[in-house]
């Protein structure tokens, strides 16, 4: 696939369809892949990579790239296309200036999961029939492919590309996913248990803003948490309240807009399951206001910008689940 992608990108560069290509650039190791913009065939040949570690969702970069002169080619995985649609809907990208090639999705690998098995000194990772052969400084290690899959891929919602100009490989379907299982599990806990769970998770937050800055829904020109005028700006989680506040408001601001791409949890250096907050909103929206998938289209009205006269009352929160 990587080879075909490079060839196609070179063609499109050569025939002038696009001026730049956004994709992934290889790193020092097997796994440290960086989203990058390529402008020449040489760069593509040398650095372009598409493999089990190209998990990064590059759609957010299109906010900037699509405003530059000349069309940009973006290779998007199914989940990334939802993000692009949402950005298009919110007028954050110039869709006309983007040439989207849909490429197959994951499952992509999580290097942290491999390291979590105590495997260190990793020099190379090979997938042989869904067994990972990991070459390390301390000899070869193996582990099953599926044990190293990123959480966001393990609960994949869709293999379908919702927007593209061209497709490489086959398009897939929207999947029956288990993505709300953990949310449900938490809902069934007592209030105290949930509180303890989230305290132990959110207290790890170092307020590095990686979750926000990677999020394709967080493209504000100036985030309220960076804007001293907002009254909530802060650089540090100076108190447990700040940790709660930041994550509640962030989740609320992307509620109905989050496509559940899972990047927030993927990049969290402290492994906080931030996607659960977003999924809680998604689950509630689905249950209370009808199934809604942000990014599935570019026209539908976001659930928080919408209403019906017979919506449920807020007291429904008191009436369901465990206290």
């Amino acid at each position, binding site marked *: 696939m990587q080879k075909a992608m490079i060839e196609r990108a070179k063609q499109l560069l050569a025939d002038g369809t696009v001026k730049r290509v956004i994709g992934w650039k290889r790193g020092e190791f097997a796994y440290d892949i960086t989203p990058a913009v390529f402008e020449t065939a040489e760069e593509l040949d040398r650095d372009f990579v598409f493999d089990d570690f190209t998990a990064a969702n590059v759609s957010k970069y299109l906010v900037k790239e699509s405003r530059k002169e000349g069309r940009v080619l973006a290779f998007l995985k199914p989940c990334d296309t939802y993000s692009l649609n949402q950005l298009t809907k*919110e*007028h*954050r990208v110039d869709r006309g200036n983007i040439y989207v090639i849909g490429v197959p999705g994951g499952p992509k690998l999580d290097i942290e999961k491999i390291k979590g098995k105590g495997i260190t000194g990793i020099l190379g990772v090979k997938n042989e029939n869904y067994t990972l052969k990991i070459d390390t400084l301390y000899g070869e290690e193996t582990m099953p492919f599926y044990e190293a899959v990123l959480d966001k891929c393990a609960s994949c919602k869709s293999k379908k590309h919702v927007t593209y100009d061209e497709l490489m490989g086959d398009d897939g379907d929207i999947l029956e996913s288990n993505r709300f299982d953990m949310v449900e599990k938490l809902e069934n806990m007592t209030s105290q248990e949930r509180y303890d769970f989230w305290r132990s998770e959110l207290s790890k937050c170092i307020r590095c803003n990686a979750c926000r800055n990677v999020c394709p829904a967080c493209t*504000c*020109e100036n985030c*309220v948490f960076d*804007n001293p*005028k907002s009254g909530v700006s802060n650089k540090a989680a100076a108190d447990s309240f700040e940790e709660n506040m930041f994550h509640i408001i962030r989740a609320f601001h992307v509620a109905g807009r989050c496509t559940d791409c899972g990047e927030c949890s993927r990049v969290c250096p402290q492994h906080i399951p931030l996607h659960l907050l977003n999924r809680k909103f998604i689950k509630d929206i689905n249950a209370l206001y009808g199934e809604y998938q942000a990014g599935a289209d570019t026209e539908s009205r976001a659930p928080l*910008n919408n209403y019906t006269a017979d919506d449920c009352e807020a007291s429904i929160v008191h009436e369901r689940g465990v206290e």
Partner: protein
Amino acid sequence: MQRIGVFVCHCGTNIAATVDVKTVAETLGHEPGVVISQDYQYMCSESGQNLVKNAIKEHNLTGVVICSCSPRMHENTFRKAAAAAGLNPYLVEIANIREQCSWIHKDIATATEKAIILGRAAVAKVHLNAPLTAGESPVVKRALVIGGGIAGIQTALDIAEAGFDVDIVEKNPTIGGKMAQIDKTFPTLDCAACILTPKMVEASQNEHITIHSFSEVAEVKGFVGNFQVKIKKKARFVDETKCTGCGLCTEKCPMKKVPNEFNMGLDNRTAIYIPFAQAVPKVATIDPNYCMMLKNGKCGVCSKVCSVGAIDYKQQDRFIEEKYGAIVVATGFNPIKLDKYDEFAYNQCPDVVTSLELERLMNAAGPNGGTLLRPSDKTHPHTIVFVQCVGSRCDDSKGKPYCSKICCMYTAKHAMLIREKYPDTEVYVFYIDVRTPGKNFDEFYRRAVEQYNVHYIKGMVGKVTPKSDGKIDVQASDLLANEQLHINADMVVLAAAIEPDKTARPLATMLTTQMDTNDFFTEAHPKLRPVESATAGIFLSGACQGPKDIPETVAQASAAAAKAIGLLCKNSITCNPCVAHSDELMCNGCSSCEKVCPYGAITYIDKEFRMPDRTTKVRRVASVNPAVCQGCGACTVACPSGAMDLNGFSNSQIMAEVDAICK
């Protein structure tokens, strides 16, 4: 540095009996920025106001906090006082220590403590108040009335009477609407045409009224006082300015088999037609669906017979643009289609008719020249069954959930007229309830029952079956007698529910007005603002707002006119300065705010910004029209970046209040 004055009112003993006002004044005097803190017997009295005015001047105050009764009571009083003393009126805040403190609490210590906290919150807020100036926006002194039925005509006449220009846009070739089709009106039984047509003529002759017949509203931009409307003048293939309405073309037209919509399709008209004799404007219109000349270029008779050369087969739709200060919606109603009511055999049997069809059948200008004959065989009907609530008060998806309101009365009218003119005809009325509130309405209905011996039967008609002998079997239940009935009828008349015209919904979108689930326009307040829409400058007249009879429609039409005149009288509108505004530097242009704005006050513009690296970037940003915004604040929460804020209730002001209360 702020210099804030605090004024604590005793309100006689209303406040002072439960709140230690001296302590409140003393304590608030220590708040940062407070330079003077006083208490007084009656702050709203003239001497109380003078106290405030003098303090503003003497201490050069930058903000005023009045601890008194509810701002709903005296906010304006104190704003005016501040303005008189040279302080921007929006630098005044009220702490409600009467209704929300002294009147509900008994313990002096806790009530005083609460009064101090409320005062402190007001002080914290006033620190952040900005002087606001109410903007002004000019008013175009011309009104648009959409719909030329009795509602639209009455509204236009009233507005014209006040000396303002008014345009009527009517989608049909003539004004007159439904009332023109009606024979007699209840409860007076006077002739509809006799009272309507003079008004139509009056409208056409009024120098202030322009009638755009056979026209539709295509686009509405702008806002209260300054709407820009694009009107589509549909091609009628006849030059209105030349046509004299002589009618020769309609006599000569060879295409005579066009269903006549004015007579509910009960007879035919020609391809070139004038809807009815008293049409206004009395101008012919060619129906392109039937005209041979327009369809295949073969004919041209009308053109040949027209002595003034008014026929123009090449006419195209035209668009005109006009500016208006106010818009009145008078789009009216239609009876619902009865296709789904197979049980009443409406589609199967020509002698099952709707009430509006019956109006035409009985009308002297109708297909039978006023003699009531069965449509099928043109014989005189001896037994007529009326079925009430067909599609009204329905809980299924076939009909409408509401009561259509006019059916009970017009059915009584029909029954009475028939019994009067044809005493040998038996009339049965099947009803759920008979609803006759209104002046002389119940008396009218009782006359039908008592004097004219109309058979009113409480019950439902289950099935209407046309029989081979031309009769109609009506199977019904009599709920009071608790028995099943079969009536061998000659005609069945269905009181079909009424619904808003289908053009109403797209129009509502253009006007950014609200509709209910039944597509009736929603009034700004169901009790207190029944003829205004929630969108400023848009008024509602007649049945577009809900089912109405003629007197109610006319009353509402005049009311809407009065509202429109009230607006047109002004040279400019003072805008509420407590409106939203967007910080363009922070705005993402994401459109969330626009989606939640009930007034369509937000638009987007592409704006060029200088970037930090000295390049420029064009970005889409929200722009609020302060003349349209009503200041609800929905957009401020929809905006994730916090670019949208509300004057007078800004994020920082509300948070300062929260902080002060939680101190």
